[in-house]
């Protein structure tokens, strides 16, 4: 197992190198110029050119790439063209809200989805199953922003129970922290809940048709014991996979949710940086996202070995 993990970690290096290469050149080939945005509306072409020269953007692209890679190898992701702050600082500032939103969303999604999926499979093709799946389809089909605005309208504006927007770091108090995450987690979690519930149901149906489940039932085991201990554990591999995909997607930014609830996470940082053509920030973010996806995939793969003893690396 250890050698497998080491091999997988080394395999990420060429992946990251390719990502770095692509993101750098794609950004440079895309239309737009940060110097023009910085110089502002009243700037002349000459003053834009002067800003571009000072930022080093007039240098040959290959030279810029070599400089950036050189910095990266020293652990330096560069400095934002606009704010003059280190990219690492900007990403670090946004990491906590994103991680908090990811975890709380998964909590909401998994807490709802697994019971719904298990019950739906247990009562397959009965009214409970159909209601559960109708709920899942509705949750999956409803755009997050629509649900978000509905939640804001009722829970924040009408009943004034929760804040409309913003993120309160945990160091500023536990309750404000929780309060700021309830609505975004529910809005986002419903979509993931629907996805996980459907996968759980499908996977459970497959397992429940196995001979050993019939044996367990026939020897008189309690239903909950059969469902949770015997069936769910063996149905877990596809469920874990879809949860893992969810984590990777959430970490790389859920722009709509972050925008509607004004959560200063990585998703909004990415969109803002792209719109402003803040090259160093976009480059740094894409590398972080790529790294996070590789890491999540690795963790998922390792978890298979614990969930299914037949899988060995």
């Amino acid at each position, binding site marked *: 197992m250890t050698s497998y993990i080491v091999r997988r970690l080394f395999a990420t290096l060429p992946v990251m190198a390719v990502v770095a290469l692509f993101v750098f050149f794609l950004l440079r080939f895309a*239309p*737009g*110029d940060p110097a*023009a*945005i*910085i*110089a*502002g*509306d*009243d*700037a*002349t*072409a*000459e*003053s*834009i050119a*002067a*800003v571009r*020269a*000072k930022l080093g953007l007039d240098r040959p692209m290959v030279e810029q790439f070599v400089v950036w890679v050189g910095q990266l190898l020293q652990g330096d992701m560069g400095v*934002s063209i*606009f*704010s*003059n*702050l280190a990219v690492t600082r*900007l990403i670090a*500032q*946004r990491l906590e809200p994103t991680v908090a939103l990811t975890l709380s969303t998964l909590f909401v999604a998994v807490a709802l989805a697994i019971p719904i999926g298990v019950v739906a499979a247990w009562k397959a093709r009965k009214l409970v199953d159909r209601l559960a799946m109708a709920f899942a389809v509705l949750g999956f089909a409803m755009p997050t922003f629509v649900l978000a*605005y509905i939640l*804001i*309208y009722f829970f*924040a*504006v009408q*009943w*004034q*129970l929760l*804040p*409309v*927007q*913003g993120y309160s770091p945990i160091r*500023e*108090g*536990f*309750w*404000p922290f*929780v*309060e700021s995450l309830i609505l975004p987690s529910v809005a986002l979690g419903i979509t993931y809940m629907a996805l996980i519930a459907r996968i759980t149901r499908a996977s459970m149906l497959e397992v429940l048709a196995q001979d050993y489940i019939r044996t367990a039932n026939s020897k008189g085991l309690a239903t909950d014991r059969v469902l949770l201990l015997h069936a769910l554990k063996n149905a877990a591999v596809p469920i874990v996979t879809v949860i893992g995909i969810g984590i990777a997607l959430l970490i790389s930014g859920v722009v709509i949710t972050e*925008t*509607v*609830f*004004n959560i*200063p996470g990585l998703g*909004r*940082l990415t969109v*803002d940086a792209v*719109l*402003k*053509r803040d090259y160093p920030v976009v480059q740094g973010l894409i590398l972080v996202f790529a790294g996070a996806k590789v890491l999540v995939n690795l963790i998922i793969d390792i978890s298979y070995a614990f969930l299914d003893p037949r899988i060995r690396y």
Partner: protein
Amino acid sequence: MFRRILAGALALAVPFAAANVQAQEKVLKAVMHADVRVIDPVWTTQTIANIHGALVYDTLFGNDGNQKPQPQMVGKYEISPDRLTYTFTLRDGLKFHDGSPVTTKDVIASLKRWGAKDGVGQRLMGFVTKMEPVDDKTFTMVLREPYGMVLESLGKSQSSIAAIMREKDALTDPQQQVKEAVGSGPYMFAKDQWVPGSKAVYLKNKDYVPRTEAPSSFAGAKIPGVDRIELVWISDPQTTMSALINGEIDFYEQPTNDFLPLLEKARGVKLMKTGKIDSTQGMIRLNHLHPPFDNVKARQAMYYLINQEDFLRTIVGDPKFYRVCKGLLTCGGPYENNGGSELMKEYNPKKALQLLKEAGYKGEPITVLAATDHATITPATQVLIQAMREAGINVDAQSMDWGSVVTRRAKKEPPSQGGWNIFVTTSGGVGSSNPVLHTWIGAACEKGLFGWPCDPEVEKLRNAFGMAATEEERQKIAKDLQTRAMEQVVFLPFGQWDTPIAFRGDKIDNVVPNTGLAVLWGITKK
């Protein structure tokens, strides 16, 4: 019942809440039109960077509510009889946020940097032969010929303000951003609490010594009204509106026009019309370098495609927030006039096409840079494109985000090689009210702004305005200038509109109308 249950559940969680140390502070939470990403108001002309700048830095002069320059950091000043030498003496008690005193060395270095970067500053410095300190508090500015806009330029409150920085900051290359925002203004920038794209924090400068005169826009006493100002950035207008209604924010600088009826009805929320001339002016810019608009007749033909009501209804909707203005200088401003307005008499697409053909247009594609992500420019561009198509003009509408428009418009190449023919933009009413500050009215050829109108007469009149000694003279020159600029079609105006400020009237006081930039320092909490 549901509400009670949920409230009960929430109450159970209260003991877990940590004490909020900021609860005792008076905090103003304001959502502006953009977020603070750049902390150097001289390096960029971005309005938000200058709103930040106006909190952190002070200026020698400040324009009052009537746009008249009044001394701000300057205690007293003298102008020599020949109007060539200005002697300024700083008032007592001026200190930077790091505790060091403001001296004339700081002032001169700051003015030099601003004068090298800002358009109005460059024009002023074109007249200045030298600036010399007499002592730590007094300095002289000597001009090569009289220039009537010295004080107005030093006190201007739009685009790059003439911010006074520490000498060591002001010596930074104007093409590079200063690293620290340390000024002598009423608020101190808390850089350690800055989260670009989310929040910028300003703390009350307890050492600030305000002037004794009554506050008036950028002039008079700047008395910090709260302990802390947070410029919170919420990119979604609907969320911002809900946050204001819910009392989570106190001040919303530019609510979307669609939401104004809701905000007007919301309990505790007040709307304030922006300053008398702080409207937004819509402008269509033609590229004078390439056919067909290198021909003045083709440019004038475009006037027949502008029905300002169409643009304004599309952008704003409610007539109480817009006005038709067929001039280039802000309507409602001190130099509003009707010079050249007869060129915009009627909407007539057939006539437009006929004149274009007479100017040599043979149906070539006209490249329009169509921004897709701008609240006002996007719909205005669509109205223009529709009018052009109605006339039978071959429109090549190139859709792109605003960031790409600002890049593309700087290209001087022909449209077929990545250039352009038309783009739409806007300008603040305060700057547009003055022929010298209104850079879009200029026609300085290749050295001018995108579109590069080229007319020595326009430039001569702008200079003459700056050198005029009397108000009567200025009024006459302003009219001549607008007439000439409209004949040359430096840009096509498509009207003016206001964006009222929305704020919690039950929570804050002393909100004043914008005059180029938002005036935040005097706002107090109830």
